[in-house]
């Protein structure tokens, strides 16, 4: 069953540009253009694109904040902007740059207030809360007013707030933006567990591709409002960056290896880098070939990093 479904989703913004004191020109900016995709229950999908691509606008339509200009969508069986209140109980939303917590209240009081607003049964609330507090290590800051939390602590608080009512779908818009490495890792681990243990469907918007690499098998890439890629992360690499690199540490330093179908791109003492096309060799085949001409002490395979792959897609588009 598809938890999220969109067909031809389109959203325009009318913006006025002031030129001169009174005169202004009207301009229609298309933020999302004809976007169609679906997300099955339990999937964790990365929604990726450069700044201004239309990611947040899509999420706002799917959560009922914005009314689309054209196209249709459904989330958990509801048309978001028509059934916003019912939908709200079934989804969890975190916008990295906004807060759903009460600034002047201790964190725990925000959680308690949410329980009443969402009318969650006390036991279910407590169970969810205990789990989040433990996994996200929030115990020590529960009594701290939200305004005094660090960004990392607040983000973990936001995540908890989005999960207390046990949503079936989670929309995360740049949840790791501005976080330090430790907080980022904590959030990622938590999301991975959540998806695995509770089968929560997650649409994760980010421009941090490490998030995606760590969490998502499937990837939607959006640029200038249109989806330009929808598929697996590995397939994306295969398609756009088919070259991998074998790094071998040989027993002796020597001249560059000459192996048919592989290019020795760098030599540093006994260490050599061989770039090869994934269709030409599997890693083990190439290792065998190298082993025939030299004695190998150690080796690693470098996959192209996703960042450069995506950058390549963007540039190919324009």
């Amino acid at each position, binding site marked *: 069953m598809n938890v999220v479904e969109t067909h031809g989703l389109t959203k325009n*913004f009318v913006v006025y540009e002031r030129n001169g004191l009174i005169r202004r020109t009207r301009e229609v900016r298309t*933020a999302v253009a004809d976007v169609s995709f679906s997300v099955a229950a339990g999937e964790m999908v990365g929604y990726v694109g450069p700044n*201004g691509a239309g990611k*947040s*606008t899509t999420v*706002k339509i799917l*959560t*009922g*904040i*914005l*009314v689309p200009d054209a196209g249709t969508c459904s989330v958990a069986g509801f048309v978001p*902007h028509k059934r*916003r*209140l*019912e939908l*709200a*109980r079934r989804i969890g*939303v975190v*916008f990295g*740059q*906004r*807060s*759903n917590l*009460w*600034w*002047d*209240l201790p964190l725990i*009081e925000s959680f308690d*207030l949410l329980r*009443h*607003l*969402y*009318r969650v049964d006390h036991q279910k609330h407590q169970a969810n809360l205990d789990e989040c507090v433990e996994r996200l290590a929030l115990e020590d800051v529960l009594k701290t*007013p939200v305004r005094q939390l660090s960004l990392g602590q607040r983000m973990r608080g936001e995540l908890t707030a989005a999960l207390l009512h046990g949503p079936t779908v989670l929309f995360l818009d740049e949840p790791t933006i501005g976080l330090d490495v430790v907080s980022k890792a904590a959030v990622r681990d938590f999301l991975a567990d959540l998806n695995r243990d509770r089968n929560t469907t997650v649409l994760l918007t980010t421009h941090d591709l490490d998030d995606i690499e760590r969490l998502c098998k499937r990837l939607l890439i959006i640029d200038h409002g249109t989806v330009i890629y929808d598929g697996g992360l590995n397939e994306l690499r295969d398609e756009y960056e088919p070259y991998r690199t074998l790094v071998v540490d040989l027993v002796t330093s020597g001249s560059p290896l000459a192996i048919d179908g592989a290019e020795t791109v760098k030599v540093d003492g006994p260490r050599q880098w061989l770039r090869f096309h994934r269709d030409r060799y599997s890693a083990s085949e190439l290792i065998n070939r190298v082993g025939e001409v030299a004695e190998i002490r150690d080796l690693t395979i470098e996959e192209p990093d996703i960042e450069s792959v995506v950058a390549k897609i963007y540039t190919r588009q324009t």
Partner: protein
Amino acid sequence: MSVQAEVSASWRAYRHLIGASVRAQMQFRTSLFMQMVASCALTATNFIEVLVIFDHLPMLGNWSAVEVAFLYGASGIGFGLCDMAIGSIERTGELVRTGKFDSIMLRPVGTLVSIAGSDMALRRVGGIAQAALVFVVASARVGIEFNVRNVVLIVVMIFGGTAIFAAVFLATAAIQFWMVGANEIGNALTYGGNYLTSFPLPVFSGWLRRLLAYVVPLAFCAYLPALAILNKPDELGIPAFLRYASPAVAAIVFLAAYGFWRLGVRHYRSTGS
């Protein structure tokens, strides 16, 4: 959900939100106390101003000072209650401009309830207390009998006034979905409206009278029901049954304003980030 269940759920959500906002304000007790005193002082100056103006307006011969105080007190309580209950919807413009309205829309609670409950102005207690004091003293002196009819009419006057002011608040907040900077116009209508309702309608010129009686029906907040309570003749020829119409008028304008608000929410376009 049935309408009744929906209303009771909204009411519960509102109560919890108010509770939270009160607890938040209690963190800054001293400042809250100072604000209450300031609010009280501010409304007191308004009252003195009304009396001074009254002293200089011969055309008010029909109205005694204590009757004007009665009017002032009733409209002040009605306005104060409204301001305290839903005054925080004034923040709409700012929430729209910054995109923070997003969070309001993500909750399983109506947007109006969510905003109205977000920041209850406890400081208004000061202003309400001042208006209530004036009202109690004026009622005692104005020579009305406290029979069932009059008590009912007084309650209806005050809560009808609250609801009509609420409609004005709501409509002016709704405008801000289109005109983000309209906050000042909003203030002019709400606070200015309260100021106007402190005076008997006849002091105003013809077009303003008609505006207040039939368009933005602030005359129903205090003046018209007060005529019924004080048993005064009306020198303007407004149909007598309208003296009792404030609950109906309140219901109509509130529903209209709410419809306008809903339209505004649909128009909300968030912000790019």
